[in-house]
């Protein structure tokens, strides 16, 4: 499933000859493709910014004078700061175990790691309600011990970790598999400790792939809506993340503010895309994708 994020390392196209379409066909196809993308992808992005600035820059800035907006931003950053490193550690461990060793049931394990990709965000949130809600499996135990998971930071973090669970692992597994174990074995033979070999051999080899996956993981963690919406409780100034804050503003007829805060997320998306493209262009050879596995 990792191909979905693949950057493209394209061999330079030779001038068209027998094995290509005519110039006219080509122009038409390019036209259709670009028009389609502009209509479907770029226009919505454009709409976010035009709506955000539709009442001028003052109205735009007003959206960020609200303390609730800042607490939403703070909460979203906090969630990302916990969820992303967690997934990095998990991704490193999982890819180490899966790529460097042979054991039975490996493909089942990979499929299970993939599972959150195809689970509906709503279901991702709901499973935690069923576990930790006061009507849920551990509900009464948690109440007795005064532990609040749902409708508080832990629940939001859990739901976010769930939806971003495969991101790092799925980038690193093919990357490490491709790199094999020869370099680590050489380091170990030369007397390096396991941890040392990991730090000086493995990590430098995968650093761009890791950065790449962190980028995508972070974008998803900050932008997740469905799963977080189920477990958040929507308490203003307390459990509202940025996407939920956008929804609230939207429901308060405060469209300019809604789109202003949304534009913050759109900018984040653009930065993610730019960094991602830079990584792909400069370090295509050190990422897992772009090559048919």
């Amino acid at each position, binding site marked *: 499933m990792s191909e979905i994020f693949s950057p493209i390392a394209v061999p330079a196209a030779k001038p068209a000859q027998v094995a290509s379409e005519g110039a006219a066909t080509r122009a038409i196809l390019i036209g259709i493709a670009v028009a389609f993308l502009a209509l479907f992808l770029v226009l919505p992005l454009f709409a976010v910014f035009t709506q955000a600035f539709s009442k001028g820059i003052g109205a735009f800035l007003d959206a960020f004078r609200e303390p609730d907006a800042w607490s939403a931003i703070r909460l979203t950053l906090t969630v990302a700061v916990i969820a992303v490193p967690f997934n990095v550690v998990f991704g490193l461990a999982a890819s180490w175990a899966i790529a460097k060793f042979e054991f039975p049931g490996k493909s089942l394990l990979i499929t299970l790691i993939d599972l959150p990709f195809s689970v*509906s*965000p709503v279901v991702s949130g709901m499973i935690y309600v069923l576990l930790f809600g006061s009507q849920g499996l551990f509900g009464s135990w948690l109440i007795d011990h005064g532990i609040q998971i749902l409708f508080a930071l832990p629940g939001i973090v859990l739901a976010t970790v769930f939806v971003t*669970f495969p991101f790092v692992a799925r980038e690193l597994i093919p990357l490490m598999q491709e790199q094999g174990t020869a370099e680590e074995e050489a380091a170990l033979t030369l007397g390096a400790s396991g941890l040392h070999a990991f730090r000086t051999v493995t990590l430098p080899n995968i650093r761009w792939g890791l950065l790449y996956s962190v980028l*995508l993981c972070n974008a998803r963690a900050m932008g997740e809506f469905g799963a977080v919406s189920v477990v958040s409780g929507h308490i203003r100034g307390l459990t509202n993340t940025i996407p939920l804050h956008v929804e609230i503003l939207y429901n308060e007829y405060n469209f300019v503010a809604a789109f202003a805060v949304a534009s913050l997320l759109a900018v984040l998306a653009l930065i993610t895309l730019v960094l991602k493209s830079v990584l792909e262009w400069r370090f295509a050879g050190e990422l897992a994708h772009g090559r048919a596995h």
Partner: protein
Amino acid sequence: MVETPRPKTSLLRTFRRPSVIPGFGISFGYTLTCLGLIVLLPLAGLVAKASGLGLSGIWEVATDPRVASALRISFGVSALAALVASAFGFLVAWVLTRYRFPGRKLVDAAVDLPFALPTAVAGIALASLYAPDGLLGAPLARLGIQVAYTPVGIFIAMVFIGLPFAVRTVQPLIAEIDKEIEEASATLGATRLVTLTKVVLPPLIPAVLTGFALAFARGVGEYGSIIFIAGNLPYVSEIAPLLIVIKLSEFDYGGAAAIATIMLGISFLTLLAINLIQAWSRRRFGYV
């Protein structure tokens, strides 16, 4: 695959093939622990909750007309959207890999926008574009086509989120195609169309199918971008994930869990289908 003699020192050793690389125990253990606690245990809780209803109970929920129609809409529209996304995705991938034109890299980067843009933001943006008074909605309304608040709106949102999957699965394979085969085909007298349909396309089919399955799975589960643009009308434009949220609001945990379990089952099947396609492709074409 040389048979190595197995040192019978520990269970772990017999489980995995021996290697000088350390850290299997800790990394494998940590992986399983996280996977178990974060993914498997909660999903098991869901299935346990649903199984409280019994198979007949789940069947009853699934065949309730409103649930059945929400599932039909989710799966039906998603399949249609994945189809369109696959077709255009293929075209986009082809254009991006085969042709050189100014701004190509920019267009290539833009394909991933739906990955990076939060779904709620996409939802309000699409709703404002396709509303009867929106930039695209107004001209369409004059043509008598209503997009927002109808199943067409669901379709648009699903194409939006599914497109990158469709493009990115076929793109690397198009890049890998050996041009010499095409040239050989052309030299042997095949027209370009014949070359494309008989030589170029067949090996790409598994990737197209994988892209379709991914876009489909994503579309079925999608919530954030759809609820803003779908009318959410029972039997017409109500999607299954929304019905789960509604069931929760009605305090019907069993019903919500049952729908979720059905969707989960189908996610499993889709993943399985993807794996089978890839295995078949590996046998048939030697790559994925």
